[in-house]
């Protein structure tokens, strides 16, 4: 009984529904969706990024490089006709890294690539969340310097601004510093997971309990507490004065330089440092970041540096950084109505031929309008009433051809 759900009772037909977490898009939603995609691609293109496309499904072993167990478990999988496991992409960085590693290493570096692609998950991140999303992103490949991180963060802010999102804030963290601190704490694997969990909830009570429980020095405990609670560049000095580790010191300089470069772009009020920022993908090695706007309840996307991922495909070390924005979230943050209004500014004409004798005249009028960039729609022959109603509803001008 439970398997049937309530569909039968409500009188619905199961074959007209789409699976949980998927949806159909109809106008004006679908048009607004395309508008966001095109607007993002336009900005990416102006910064020198060129579009790539990768297969919807690939071998599981390629898609699972570096992404972490959680994401691998949530991928849709199937068996190919030769028995190998294939999976549907759940994010775009691993596919692009595979593509670059296998086919594009001969190109002159740095390589700038972008994409707009759908990604799917078998298990959603949270009950009621979508299982299919569209990601628009860029990858900047072959540049180790922090100027690359500054470029992708700036580009992301620029692209969001072009969409009309003026109040975006970006939080910046550093996967390398966090990993270094974890190494200093010498934790067991399950303790690492717990520490990550507590830091991502900013729960310093729980955090301190785990660290003290595993016998960490008081300096390390305090350093993690600072990571959890202190926002802004100040945390770098706080952490360094506690642990005085050379590795951390070097990475801290990198972060300071990044913020200096972002200031050159005028983004000082948009970015803030939060070393407690944790992204749920394993491949990050350096600076990581997430954009937020008050108009949407979670991050709009995110990104960061992944210097070892391409090497895991080809053995050759290729540094890289990038980000992905979730188009579905952006649409919600900007508002479909706001975009639909922008799109509706285009003139629209409905032509109604009153008889087959006037049909040729109607066709030539439509052709002339379209040549001028006006949307021209031919209505059913002789249906003046229907045409009038439709014109009124769609805010179009009516042209009757007798």
């Amino acid at each position, binding site marked *: 009984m439970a398997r049937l759900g309530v569909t039968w009772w409500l009188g619905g037909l199961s074959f007209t529904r789409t699976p949980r977490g998927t949806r159909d898009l109809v106008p004006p939603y679908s048009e607004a969706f395309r508008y966001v995609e095109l607007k993002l691609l336009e900005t990416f293109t102006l910064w020198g990024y060129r579009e790539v496309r990768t297969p919807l499904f690939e071998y599981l072993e390629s898609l699972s490089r570096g992404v972490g167990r959680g994401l691998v478990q949530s991928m849709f999988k199937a068996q190919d006709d030769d028995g190998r496991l294939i999976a549907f992409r759940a994010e775009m960085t691993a596919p692009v890294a595979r593509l670059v590693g296998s086919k594009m290493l001969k190109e002159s570096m740095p390589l700038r690539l972008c994409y707009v692609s759908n990604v799917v998950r078998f298990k959603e991140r*949270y*009950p009621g969340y979508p299982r299919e999303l569209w990601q628009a992103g860029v990858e900047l490949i072959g540049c180790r310097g922090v100027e690359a991180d500054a470029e992708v963060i700036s580009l992301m802010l620029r692209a969001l601004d072009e969409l009309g999102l003026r*109040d975006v*804030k970006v*939080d910046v963290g550093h996967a390398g510093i966090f990993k270094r601190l974890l190494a200093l704490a010498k934790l067991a694997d399950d303790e690492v997971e717990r520490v990550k969990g507590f830091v*991502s*909830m*900013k*729960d310093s*009570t*729980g955090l301190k309990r785990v660290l003290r429980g595993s016998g960490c020095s008081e300096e390390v405990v305090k350093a993690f507490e600072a990571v959890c609670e202190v*926002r802004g560049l100040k945390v770098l000095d706080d952490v360094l004065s506690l642990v005085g580790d050379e590795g951390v010191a070097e990475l801290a300089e990198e972060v300071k330089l990044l913020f200096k470069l972002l200031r050159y772009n005028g983004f000082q009020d948009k970015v*803030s440092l939060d070393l407690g920022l944790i992204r749920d993908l394993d491949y990050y090695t350096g600076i990581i970041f997430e954009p*937020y*706007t*008050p108009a*949407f*309840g*979670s*991050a709009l996307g995110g990104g960061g540096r992944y210097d070892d991922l391409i090497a895991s495909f080809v053995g050759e070390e290729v540094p890289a950084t990038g980000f992905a924005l979730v188009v579905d979230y952006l649409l919600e943050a900007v508002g479909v109505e706001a975009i639909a209004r922008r799109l509706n500014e285009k003139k629209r004409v409905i032509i109604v031929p009153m008889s087959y004798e006037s049909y040729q005249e109607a066709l030539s009028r439509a052709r002339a309008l379209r040549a001028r960039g006006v949307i021209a729609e031919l209505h059913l022959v002789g249906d003046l009433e229907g045409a009038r109603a439709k014109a009124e509803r769609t805010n179009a001008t009516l042209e009757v051809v007798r």
Partner: protein
Amino acid sequence: MRPLRMAISNKGRLHKPSLELLARAGFPIGEGLRSYVVKVNGLEVVLARAADIPIYVHFGAVDLGITGHDLVLEKEADVYELLDLGFGWCKMIVAVPEESPINSVYDLPRVSRVATSFPRIASSYFERLGLSVEVVEVEGAVEIAPRLGLADAIVDLATTGATLRENRLKEIAVVLEASARLICNKVSFRAREREIASLVERLRVSR
């Protein structure tokens, strides 16, 4: 911009201490309120079910909330826990009938059934121990499940142990200990950083 919004529990064991904390921090709200939203000194207080608060905060319907740590975990809400408020302490335990020969979770039948209103916490708890347990979700009166033969054991909250004794149950393991937390939406935390920081400070000193 709209005032900061905070959800607190509208009944149950977290209700009164939450009201008292807010009053000490300078946001006095009369008791016995019927309405869902109260404005007090520039703060919008939303009265909601404790179990729904993690979801409200997760989706940003409210910026902040006071609810149990256990509920944040159960709802798998992606939120910040900014303060341990100290009150509302409770522990989540595994219990079986008093007369049962079972004295530890490892004595449970190889394939057993557990009734709980915390299915996610219970499942991951037994999974971590490597025990195969079927979890049955019930909304309330979990304690009667073993008597009815619905389950071999229960996972439920126990503050004093009185309810357990009344229902002739004994505790065989502690799943977790939890207290009330101030939780915060991750976007609000950034978008309204200063306002939230000062509110958190007021609550911190009034604890």
